[in-house]
């Protein structure tokens, strides 16, 4: 597969939200009074000023994959991110803030498609930022797992599970209550009250689903 086509596949995979091929429905929630203590969902999301460097392996459904370096910088007001080849070429660099929206600073074709940037920022927000909008319920789901369930005005649901095995998980459900994205952290280390996974796997479900395997290279808290 030619390079250009390969990245088009990746971009399309990152952008298109399709009906789930392997449908997983939203599990029922037992209300909060049945669990001991409140789930510490805040520990899943970095607070303050952070910088992460990951090795990111993109894999699309037909099995083709490529690996790049990913840089994510977080402050209270702004997210900066960059994708860099192993050989050092900056493929993409952008910043996002509520005030100014998305600012693309560098994007080498085919990464210059604005929808690619939106998809990338959406993944970053899912992994690193606590859901802010809507109603929050605390309780347990199947397997007695503690959960913080966020429901926004459009009916989308994000479950934050702060204690699964040795780390955490995030699951996002569309308004028809089917799983459309999941993030599974592994081998968490506690750093400045935040649980930092040594390894993350994001799966986007649907006809053009994709997987991001993110191995932590560096996490700095400033």
């Amino acid at each position, binding site marked *: 597969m030619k390079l250009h086509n390969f990245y088009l596949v990746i971009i399309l995979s990152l952008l298109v939200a399709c009906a789930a091929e392997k449908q997983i429905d939203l599990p029922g929630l037992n209300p909060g009074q049945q669990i001991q203590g409140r789930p510490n969902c805040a520990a899943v999301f970095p607070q303050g000023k952070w910088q992460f460097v990951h090795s990111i392996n993109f894999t699309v459904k037909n099995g083709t*994959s490529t690996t790049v*370096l990913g*840089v994510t910088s977080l402050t209270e007001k702004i997210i900066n991110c960059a994708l860099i080849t*192993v*050989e050092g070429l900056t493929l993409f*660099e952008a910043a996002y803030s509520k005030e100014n929206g998305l600012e693309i600073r560098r994007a080498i074709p085919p990464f210059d498609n604005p929808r690619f940037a939106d998809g990338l920022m959406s993944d970053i927000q899912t992994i690193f930022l606590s859901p802010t909008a809507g109603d929050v319920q605390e309780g347990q789901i199947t397997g007695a797992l503690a959960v913080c369930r966020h429901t926004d005005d459009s009916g989308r649901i994000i479950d934050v599970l702060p204690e699964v095995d040795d780390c955490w998980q995030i699951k996002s459900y569309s308004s028809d209550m089917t799983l459309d994205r999941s993030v599974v952290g592994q081998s968490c280390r506690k750093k400045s009250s935040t649980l930092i996974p040594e390894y993350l796997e994001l799966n986007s479900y649907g006809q053009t689903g994709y997987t991001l395997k993110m191995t932590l290279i560096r996490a700095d808290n400033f």
Partner: protein
Amino acid sequence: MKSLTLLFTTFLLFLAPISSFGSAVQDQVHLHSIRADFVQEKHLRILAKPIVSTGIFAFQAPRSLRWEYLVPIPSILLMHDGKLSKFVKTDGRFIEDQGIGLDAMQFMLGEISNWLDGRFTDNEMFVASFPDKQTILLEPREQSLAGLISRIELRLADQKGVLNSITIYEGSDSYTRMTFNNAVINKIIPSALFIQK
């Protein structure tokens, strides 16, 4: 695509024999092979600290190459007998990577041949200048490429035929520097090095 090709072109410039650099160096060395360790630093405005990578680079005429990163992402680009492949360590084993590099490297085969013939300044993509005896500056000929890579600075090593470092500037606050050491030139490299992962 062209910008990706440009990057690979620049990273392979140190393969060029010193004779290619015209007035920058008086002595000429005919290069048959080179092997060197390298340290790569990636600087970016948003990076609090540079990303440091290390690896091994080996080339043998006419068209055999091993470009291996050991950390932080183990990966190997291999080229031998016209076959080109890239592998990245994923889940503990080397998996073939269909991403960046392969198309560009095919183009590079022709470029390397030119350099080995001492035709560095024939390069269609760069204008070369020589600010001092140890430095070669390369600037893209086309404005479209200059927006991606503003300039390249090559520093010559004391050892004839070898570069000390390559710095590729993407902008005023973004650059990649590869520093080479332990370079060995013109010693036969076993072909297995260009085949084995």
